[in-house]
């Protein structure tokens, strides 16, 4: 967490006050919330009134998809189909699965290409199967596993030709890609504070003013009647401070991290273990792939063996795949991109950020050969 965000939050936590109350303390809290809303909105190219605070990315995704589907069906019961990319985060995938299983919704999954992009043409084809049945299109801004940045503006243009609203989960893009809600022409956008150095447990759904969203939690009517619940003024303040700072420093930081990423990937590919990089990657390209994302496939290895061996060598990384009851599963993102299941098991995701250094990259590259050789010996047992 950014020190400035911690300081702002701590200061606010010492001050009581419910932003919905009318007394002095309440007014003071409301002022902090509204100022934070304005600062946050400015940082992401949105209007303050478009920012709906939530508890984080998962709630925002659920509110966007369930709320938009319900509102669109209310206007037209035939709008029951969701057009969703197959490489979404589970907060979107599982929400859609639930709506299909229990709420009579239909879904058309849009598969990414082998480079990890959702093409506007594929979205168009999915819509054209039956344009009048589509309630919402949802495509994430940047993929959390392979780091590809999607052409959200072009996708929004396609959907809008048919009068269909578009949601994008921009959790991974916030602070790491140039994010501009107005310029993207999205109707709904999910963000969360901790991905920008802010606190855990707070996020927002950015909702274009004309976009109808049926509330999914009912109560005091806070947040434009869309999301009830007492506002967490300290967290919201920390959120705004963090996003503002992250967005301000993003370009300088991006350049530095991009060089680290490219050196890491180039050197790993050169090690001679048949390692490949997943998703689109071009040295120097931070526009179509997150500058801090390196995702490697190491043939003949189990990702969790590599994870253990690298962790023991002091390198923290992730397999980038979800767990089912703690059991690593091959990533649905890689499978959707056409990676074979066996290859997908050898996935290794390295995330570089503002604390990453050249020495970190050196340490990883030094530890990798021994880890790969050991992991290969262990693979296939069990």
């Amino acid at each position: 967490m950014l020190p400035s965000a911690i300081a702002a939050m701590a200061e606010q936590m010492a001050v009581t006050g419910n932003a919905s109350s009318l007394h002095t303390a309440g007014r003071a809290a409301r002022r902090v919330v509204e100022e934070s809303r304005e600062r946050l909105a400015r940082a992401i190219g949105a209007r303050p009134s478009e920012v709906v605070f939530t508890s984080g990315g998962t709630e925002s995704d659920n509110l966007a998809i369930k709320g938009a589907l319900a509102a669109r069906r209310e206007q037209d019961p035939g709008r029951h189909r969701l057009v969703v990319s197959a490489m979404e985060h589970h907060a979107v995938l599982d929400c859609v699965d639930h709506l299909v299983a229990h709420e009579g919704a239909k879904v058309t999954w849009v598969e990414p290409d082998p480079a990890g992009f959702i093409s506007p043409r594929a979205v168009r084809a999915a819509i054209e199967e039956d344009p009048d049945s589509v309630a919402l299109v949802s495509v994430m801004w940047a993929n959390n596993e392979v780091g590809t940045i999607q052409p959200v503006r072009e996708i929004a243009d396609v959907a809008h030709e048919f009068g269909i609203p578009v949601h994008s989960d921009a959790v991974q893009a916030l602070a790491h890609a140039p994010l501009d809600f107005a310029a993207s022409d999205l109707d709904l956008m999910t963000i969360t504070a901790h991905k920008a150095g802010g606190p855990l447990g707070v996020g927002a759904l950015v909702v274009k003013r004309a976009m109808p969203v049926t509330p999914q939690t009912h109560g005091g009517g806070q947040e434009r009647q869309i999301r009830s619940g007492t506002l967490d003024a300290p967290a919201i303040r920390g959120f705004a401070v963090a996003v503002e700072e992250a967005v301000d420093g993003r370009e300088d930081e991006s350049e530095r991290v991009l060089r680290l990423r490219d050196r890491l990937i180039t050197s790993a590919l050169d090690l001679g273990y048949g390692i490949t990089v997943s998703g689109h990657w071009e040295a120097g390209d931070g526009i179509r792939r997150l500058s801090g994302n390196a995702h490697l496939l190491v043939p003949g290895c189990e990702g969790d063996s590599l994870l253990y061996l690298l962790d023991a060598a002091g390198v923290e990384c992730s397999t980038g795949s979800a767990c089912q009851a703690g059991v690593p599963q091959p990533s649905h993102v890689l499978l959707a991109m056409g990676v074979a299941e066996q290859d997908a098991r050898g996935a290794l995701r390295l995330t570089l950020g503002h604390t990453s250094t050249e020495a970190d990259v050196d340490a990883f590259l030094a530890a990798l050969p021994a880890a790969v050789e050991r992991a290969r010996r262990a693979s296939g047992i069990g």
Partner: protein
Amino acid sequence: MRVVAAMSGGVDSAVAAARMLDAGHEVVGVHLALSQSAATLRESARGCCTIEDAGDARRVADMLGIPFYVWDMASRFKRDVMEDFVAEYSAGRTPNPCLRCNEKIKFAALLDKAVALGFDAVATGHYAQVVERPDGSRELHRALDPAKDQSYVLGVLTAEQLARSFFPLGDTTKPEIRAEARERGFYVASKPDSHDICFIADGDTRGWLTQRLGEQPGDIVDAVSGDVVGAHSGAYAYTVGQRRGLGLPRHAQDGQPRYVVDVDAASNTVVVGTADLLGVNALTGDHARWCGPAPEGVVAVGAQVRAHGDEVPATAWAEGDHVQVRLESRLRGVAPGQSVVLYGGTRVVGSASISSARLER
């Protein structure tokens, strides 16, 4: 040493991991995922592979400050333990899946993977003792606590496997382990012991087998007269020595209860007789495994044929891959497929899978 602590989520393996850490080893916790479809929290927490158990194991690892991983061995477990279990019952034998799991999973797949990753050994929460001899070789001995002793289900381990195994609980009684877990602040301290077979959550082995093998109606036959005295829906569901579940009234003439004395899988027949027909004093075992060198000639041993059974004095001799065991007193209800574990004092000498149990004069 670098040690993998196998952590089931129970109290025993939690304390075992803690003790390895206290002893100065570098410890990594590993929970084995053995279930094909992990149960949800709403389902029964019995067995050893529910989400709740994995969570309990992780919580203890976090308290100990050690890394924790879940290794998926479900397909290997299904093949080597569950399918073996079905095949054995189907062939009229009575297997011990815990023993098979130790042989094929915990001290094979788990140990092999650990060694491949650079670990030196595996530690588990089994109650048994490893004694190191002056020459560096290792012996497996019964646990101090006779009520919890699990050397029987470890009887399949070879000297090579033992050399890489730690059982840190063998010198302590179960109540003391629970007390130690409480002192260490493990909330699993009062977690109930696991019982029965982990993959048969409701304990209904017959029902579980019927789901997999289907109903196979056949006759229940009297051992002496050869008369058909009843019907069953699958001979595989019966075990030698079994009395309950036969659906037979007391015998009209002698008033004695009837027991299963033989299960003939080939003819799908269950043979019943009186208790005196159950006594055996001679066993032949296949797949003999010796913990150390095979004994030379006839040796005096103690023989145990089930996990919680008594040891009886016997003599044994090796015949290639087989072992012959002559019991000094009769044992009742010994079924083919059970393992016989041979002891020399408290030391495990070896084990074998019983292929024949009979009465010799």
